[in-house]
């Protein structure tokens, strides 16, 4: 287990981490292959602030941590039961082992109880298959009651913002998914500044979070900030259109933009390749900052690195969505039936849908939230505070080190009221959950 030790020097860790390393080896934990990633994961987590669910979510890491933590869980239980011979042996290891390697597991359990939330925005011209793709990604039909507008109604349509929320549960993990839809974008004859309502909405969510965060009661802050924006590029153009460039430049500093090539089943493979290259060139040329996938660590295994490389090379993803299940080669697949063949949505040779789904849900969901919180929101906050302090110094001519929002300070009574309302809200939420459960059981 010696070779793992050099990693200790890389990260400034408290003194006993090296001990953790060696004891791990002596205890003979699990498989050799997991060991390398195991130690690095443990070391990293040892110095991370585990206040929020910042756990890197790669499946093997989680599994490795589970395998590591399990015996220590048992340790805790056994400590509470009457001592046995085995216990005395474990107690020796106990002395050298602090045991906070269970922390990720604790976080994991808490997150499962609390559930995750994620806000996804979809934008693009109408008719590019946005609702179909959302349906395929999350396997829920959020647009059952949607009525397509006729041509007359469209002439006077302006850009709207529509929110649909759905609770998805899988294997005990709850996800509260909010989809922000932008019907009417890019559909009019004159589309000047048609991205302004969308930009305003994103700013509004930031502002609301900023106010909540700076307020006095921060228990139930609702995070409505947009974590990711899927932007649909038409496959019929020769690259980015002026509307696309305008939208992305207006929003690239506010939200993570993931560009997608929509309706990719109308392109032959060579056309897809050319279009992707052209879009990448134009994104560079226009200086648009789309969401960048984080670099994978140097100590990851080759498979993961290869996957990561493929992911980066196939951006922007060429996707196809489908609401229907068709029969292909004796199997039922999600796809589109044409007279000349069947397009399978989940076939990697047909489109990049699987890559998008994995990226969005299975591997990068947390990173998207992190970047939103750490980068976009902080930029907004800094900008906001600067504006306020400059206004304050202009108005009152005094130094104000702590930016105080111009909110009235609530007195004791209002505080009590707020607390009561919070309690009520929580109770109602619990009741709603119970009712939902009951309905599902029925």
């Amino acid at each position: 287990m010696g070779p793992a030790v050099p990693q200790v020097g890389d990260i400034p860790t408290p003194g006993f981490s090296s001990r953790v390393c060696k004891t791990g080896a002596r205890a003979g934990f699990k498989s050799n292959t997991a060991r390398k990633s195991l130690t690095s994961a443990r070391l990293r987590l040892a110095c991370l602030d585990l206040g929020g669910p910042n756990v890197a979510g790669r499946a093997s890491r989680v599994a490795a941590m589970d395998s590591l933590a399990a015996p220590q869980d048992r340790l805790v239980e056994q400590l509470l039961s009457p001592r046995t011979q085995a216990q005395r042996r474990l107690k020796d290891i106990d002395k050298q082992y602090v045991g906070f390697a269970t922390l990720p597991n604790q976080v994991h359990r808490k997150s499962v109880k609390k559930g995750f939330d994620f806000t996804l925005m979809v934008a693009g011209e109408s008719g590019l298959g946005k609702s179909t793709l959302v349906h395929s990604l999350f396997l829920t039909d959020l647009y059952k009651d949607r009525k397509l507008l006729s041509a007359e109604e469209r002439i006077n349509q302006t850009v709207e913002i529509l929110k649909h929320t759905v609770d998805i549960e899988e294997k005990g993990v709850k996800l509260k998914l909010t989809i922000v839809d932008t019907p009417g974008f890019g559909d009019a004859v004159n589309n000047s500044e048609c991205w302004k309502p969308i930009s305003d909405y994103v700013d509004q969510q930031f502002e609301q979070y900023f106010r909540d965060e700076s307020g006095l009661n921060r228990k139930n802050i609702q995070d409505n900030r947009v974590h990711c924006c899927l932007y649909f590029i038409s496959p019929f153009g020769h690259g980015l259109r002026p509307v696309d460039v305008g939208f992305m430049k207006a929003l690239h500093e506010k939200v993570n933009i993931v560009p997608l090539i929509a309706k990719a089943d109308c392109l032959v493979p060579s056309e897809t390749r050319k279009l992707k290259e052209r879009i990448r060139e134009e994104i560079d040329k226009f200086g648009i900052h789309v969401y960048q996938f984080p670099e994978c660590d140097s100590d990851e295994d080759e498979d993961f690195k290869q996957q990561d490389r493929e992911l980066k090379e196939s951006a922007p993803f060429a996707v196809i969505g489908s609401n229907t299940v068709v029969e292909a080669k004796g199997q039922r697949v999600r796809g589109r039936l044409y007279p000349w063949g069947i397009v399978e949505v989940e076939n990697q040779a047909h489109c990049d849908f699987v890559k998008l789904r994995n990226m969005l849900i299975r591997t990068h969901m947390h990173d998207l939230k992190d970047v939103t919180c750490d980068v976009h929101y902080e930029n907004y906050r800094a900008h906001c505070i600067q504006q306020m302090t400059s206004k304050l110094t202009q108005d009152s001519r005094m130094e104000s080190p702590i930016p105080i929002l111009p909110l009235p300070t609530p007195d004791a009574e209002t505080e009590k009221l707020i607390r009561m309302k919070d309690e009520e809200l929580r109770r109602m939420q619990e009741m709603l959950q119970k009712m939902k459960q009951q309905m599902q059981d029925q």
Partner: protein
Amino acid sequence: MDTLRQSPSPCSSRPSSPRTPPCETPAPVGIEAVLDQLKIKAMKTGFEFNIMVVGQSGLGKSTMVNTLFKSKVWKSTLPAPGVPTPQTLQLHSVTHVIEEKGLKLKLTVTDTPGFGDQINNSNCWEPILGYINEQYEQYLQEEILITRQRHIPDTRVHCCVYFVPPTGHCLRPLDIEFLQRLCRTVNVVPVIARADSLTIEEREAFRSRIQKDLKSHCIDVYPQKHFDEDVNDRILNSKIRERIPFAVVGADQEHLVNGRCVLGRKTNWGVIEVENMEHCEFPLLRDLLIRSHLQDLKDITHNIHYENYRVVRLKESHQLPRGPGWVNLSPVNLAPTSAGQPTTPRPSKARKRAQEEPKYEF
């Protein structure tokens, strides 16, 4: 009256004229030979056809033209990446002479790059309308000359193919604005472009929604209902009208399918054959434009659209014609070519020629 006379039969004994021998049908006059003469003349002079393709970039307009005429008539050039699209619409014409079985066709294709690509597309149809009216103006100026050419070069747009993007929902406001304005000036044939992104059900639903939209906005696309001349035309054109707009796919590459060489697009899940009616309706479009209705398109352009334009222009000149062939038109800001002045009168021979009806050349 002699009863025999009332029932003439080939071998009747009615007095026959000395020329026709008895018991023989009168020899035909030989009118059908005129058709042959027309055909020979057509082969010599050849045909002209001007087609305009309008639609957003990337909808396969140039590929469609190449597929229609089975030759590399048009090569679309892409602007370099990062270069912004030009603010005003630039129309671009290319002329080719195509020959098939001894018959020459002078084909002019006018492209409209940049249509509908800007953020603000208000009035993006004005350059196109201007171009079409300019061609009418040129023809009009040639026509009112005292010494006219025997065969006036016809640059008028005979057909405008409008490419509707396959959103699957309905016509966009831009499509409606454009079609409303243009169907009054030129024959418009709307097609659903890049139809390989729609399944058959989606295609039919899209088509019926488009037809409803066209009707509710009073957009009269080719073949127009009130120009049907007789019952046969009406029946044929009704069948065509049911299928408008055609869902087309264009391709200029050949692939091998079941041992046959077909024009198509090869994807990972199959080959889309362009000339297969089960895959797309390109054969219908080709038949309409070239094989059956080419002449009709030209007729309607000449007899109806051009005449409408001429009436409007003559009214604008605020003067009644001073006699056959002498029309003083006020200077026009549309046509950059002629100054609108009649040429100095030549001797009476020219005036006599000008008295004749404008001859329709074909």
